[in-house]
């Protein structure tokens, strides 16, 4: 199964987009290079649904570029390559048709086999039913004999079917199976096959015909950076971001981050941060922003820019009616800006009591005044190890993000987010608490 295709893998450039048609290339790139792309084709076996899609696989220009830069893939202009079909030699055509025919024969034979086997199994089942009926009719002695047959039958059914499936696929992959004597031609004639790729009959494209590396959007450095950290990335507009970042193969893992790239000197609209943070939290993901520090004219190549990328994640903690959670959130929030809370315990504001819940602790304006700016924040450690039980969810988040905080990164962030403090602190304290839903923006800085 771990098939290794010949490198570089040709990526088809079709009408301005990058596509892959070879299943081996798709599996290989996914396994070895964490490139997933998006399947856009119809699965011929169940064509009327959109949940599972098939080949071809569409690659983002970023993905194609990454692979080309790594030397794993090359770009081939497919329309030009297929002009070669007209000039195909007659003997090549004949050979190709013969190949397809033998594949078709093989497939028909497998299908016939399977039909036969299914029939046998049904017959066997009927017989067994009969036997069971007999056994029931006869005494307990028969019951002992009956028990081993049932599990055996249950086990053999799926395995036989799986074997057949695997066999069929192997046949498709490697048509040159030795056992193709044309002794038993199926009665219904040869099954025709539409191959997925055109190589063969077309010759492998020459290096001279490769197109140059794809043009990429300004978000490419962040894309490449996250990819180099082991994340799987996929297009994210549907989820309100540029890329979705998965910690592992999206087949098995949910994504962790909504990624949006900014230029280094770009002014970020505070509203975008708030909206992104809320969106991310709403879908249980972190909102990640980042960008490359150096412009393309300051460095030699795109790859050098990737090294200068920094990424930050924002999380919006919607917290209500839990003292401990609030305490931690407040502390984290303030510490993130380099503030220290002089009083570890926040004052209880009377009158803000929800029926049936613990009293809300309010983050009053008086306590804001007490907060002082201190130069290196000393409370990072307390953030990383919240100790209460009720803070479980937050702690999970804290542990995950905060464990990885790199102190050297904190300073530029504080400078960048200072404005955020001035603009968000007051409304937070005033509006949300009077709303009885005390919500605090928790901004956590992460060095991924």
């Amino acid at each position: 199964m771990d098939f290794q295709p010949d490198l570089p893998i040709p990526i088809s450039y079709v009408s301005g987009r990058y596509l892959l048609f070879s299943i081996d290339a798709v599996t290989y790139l996914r396994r070895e290079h964490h490139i997933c792309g998006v399947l856009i084709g119809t699965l011929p076996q169940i064509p009327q649904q959109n949940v599972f899609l098939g080949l071809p696989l569409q690659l983002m220009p970023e993905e194609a570029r990454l692979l080309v830069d790594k030397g794993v893939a090359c770009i081939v202009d497919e329309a030009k390559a297929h002009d070669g079909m007209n000039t195909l030699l007659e003997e090549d055509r004949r050979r190709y048709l013969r190949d397809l025919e033998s594949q078709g024969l093989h497939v028909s034979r497998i299908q016939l086999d399977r039909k036969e086997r299914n029939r046998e199994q049904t017959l066997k089942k009927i017989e067994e039913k009969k036997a069971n009926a007999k056994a029931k009719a006869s005494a307990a002695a028969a019951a002992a004999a009956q028990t081993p047959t049932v599990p055996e039958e249950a086990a053999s059914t799926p395995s036989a079917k799986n074997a057949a499936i695997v066999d069929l696929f192997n046949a498709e992959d490697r048509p040159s199976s030795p056992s193709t004597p044309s002794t038993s031609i199926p009665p219904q004639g040869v099954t025709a096959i539409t191959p997925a790729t055109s190589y063969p009959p077309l010759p492998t494209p020459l290096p001279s015909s490769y197109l140059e590396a794809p043009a990429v959007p300004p978000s490419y450095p962040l894309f490449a950076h996250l990819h180099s950290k082991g994340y799987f990335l996929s297009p994210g507009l549907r989820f309100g971001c540029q890329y979705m970042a998965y910690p592992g193969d999206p087949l098995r893992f949910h994504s962790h981050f909504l990624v949006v790239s900014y230029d280094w000197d770009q002014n970020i609209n505070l509203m975008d941060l708030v909206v992104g943070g809320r969106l991310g939290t709403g879908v249980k993901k972190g909102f990640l922003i980042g960008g490359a520090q150096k412009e393309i004219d300051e460095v030699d190549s795109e790859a050098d820019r990737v090294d200068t990328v920094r990424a930050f994640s924002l999380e919006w903690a919607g917290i209500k009616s839990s003292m401990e959670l609030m305490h931690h959130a407040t502390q984290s929030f303030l510490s993130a800006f380099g503030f220290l809370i002089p009083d570890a315990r926040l004052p209880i504001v009377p009158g803000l009591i929800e029926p049936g819940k613990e009293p809300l602790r309010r983050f009053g304006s008086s306590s804001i005044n007490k907060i002082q700016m201190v130069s290196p924040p000393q409370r990072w450690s307390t953030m990383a190890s919240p100790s209460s039980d009720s803070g479980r969810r937050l702690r999970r988040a804290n542990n995950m993000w905060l464990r990885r905080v790199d102190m050297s990164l904190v300073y530029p962030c504080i400078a960048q987010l200072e404005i955020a403090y001035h603009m968000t602190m007051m409304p937070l304290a005033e509006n949300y608490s009077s709303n009885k839903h005390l919500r605090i923006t928790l901004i956590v800085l992460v060095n991924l």
Partner: protein
Amino acid sequence: MADADEDAIRAPENASTQPEVDLSDETQDFRFLNHLNFFADSSPGIPRRGEKDFEPNPTELQADVLSASRGAMHNALSYPRLHATKTRVIAFYAPDGYVPPATTERATPKASGEDGKSSDSTPKPARPLPNSARISPDACVYVTNPKGQFFKTMGQADSSSRVWLLPEEALYLIERGSLDIRWPSPSGSVAGPGEEDLSVPMSLQAAYACFMGRGGLTLERYSVYTGLRRLGYALVRAPGWCDDIEKPDAEASDASDLTPPKLHGPGLAGMLGSLFNWIHDPRSTASTATGPIIGTGIHRHYMDVYRKLAIIPWYDPVTAPERHTSDTTPPFRVVFHIYKPSTPFKKSSPPTPDFRIAVVSTRDQTTMPTMTQLGALLESTPLDPPRGEKMDRMMYMRLRHGYRNVVMAVVDQGVVSYLRIADSAFGKEKLYENKGGPQGPKRNRANQKPRKR
């Protein structure tokens, strides 16, 4: 504990939202596909959403599950496109597009009337039928033995009963394994009986290479086409398909002469203009300058007062002029007409479409449409006012339905999001005329009031 509580609260909520989860929203674990039995006669069901892990850990178990998933995916994707002899439909690729059948080809001309609507089995007369006129010059694949359900909604037959397929139709059919397309025979030689063998079947890759980009077909448009086809909708190209459509002749040019003065007419953008004028022109609100807005006099009814107070101009979609497709800017232009599976569809005379769709590629169009673009797009669709008993009763249904509507498919690298854009007429909903009492179920006036603005 807080978490336990929260979970308990969330559980029923999740259960209720579960059926609405769109499985195609995210990557599905292909192992669940294996639970479907492709080879059974019964139609396969769609698998349920599978469990996924939070993050990778170095356990063998996780590695095994992942490799099983990948194996399943590999298997599913490498399933070949097969054509059993019985159901096989062979098509031929015509690189030069639609060619009217040469006169010599018609070996058996039979005179028969009304062939335009007759079934495929009836040979067509020599004279080119109006049917041939419907064959798009972009059609590049023809089928000589059209059979199967697909040709009810696809392709156009020419006078020698060959059905010509558009690139997206051919590509969709070859991709789902329902069509065997052949390359034209080598070097243009007329296929003799011996050479017939040498027409090589087209691969999926070749089909993409040849059809994509042909006659305005982009991968984005195709993604929308095929995605909706898979769900059972029928799609046909709309007049806005070509980017460089011309206005229809002299009559239209007259209309365009008239358009500039109409700028401040009741169009969506013109509405803004009149609002602007209203703010800056004190005379239109002369009555407010000289006295109370409602005027001096006796008011016996609140309705009169409200009516007088309604001085802010509003936009009425009904009076907006219908605009031609050529007024729209290319990505924001209807390219497909969509028919629900339940709509009786006839190729020769397509009914009024159920939906109209515009396709936008996020990599080519990175910004939201402007008001002008959106207004032109909406006004290029026919008026579709909310009708029916339910609509009359429920105001929010009316507002949501709007007076014109269009679907915008936003394609981000193969991932399609559909947005329905409707032209709602808030100004037409006179809340004060609604004499108290709830309008819809569970809605009271307290809820409606703030919505008025």
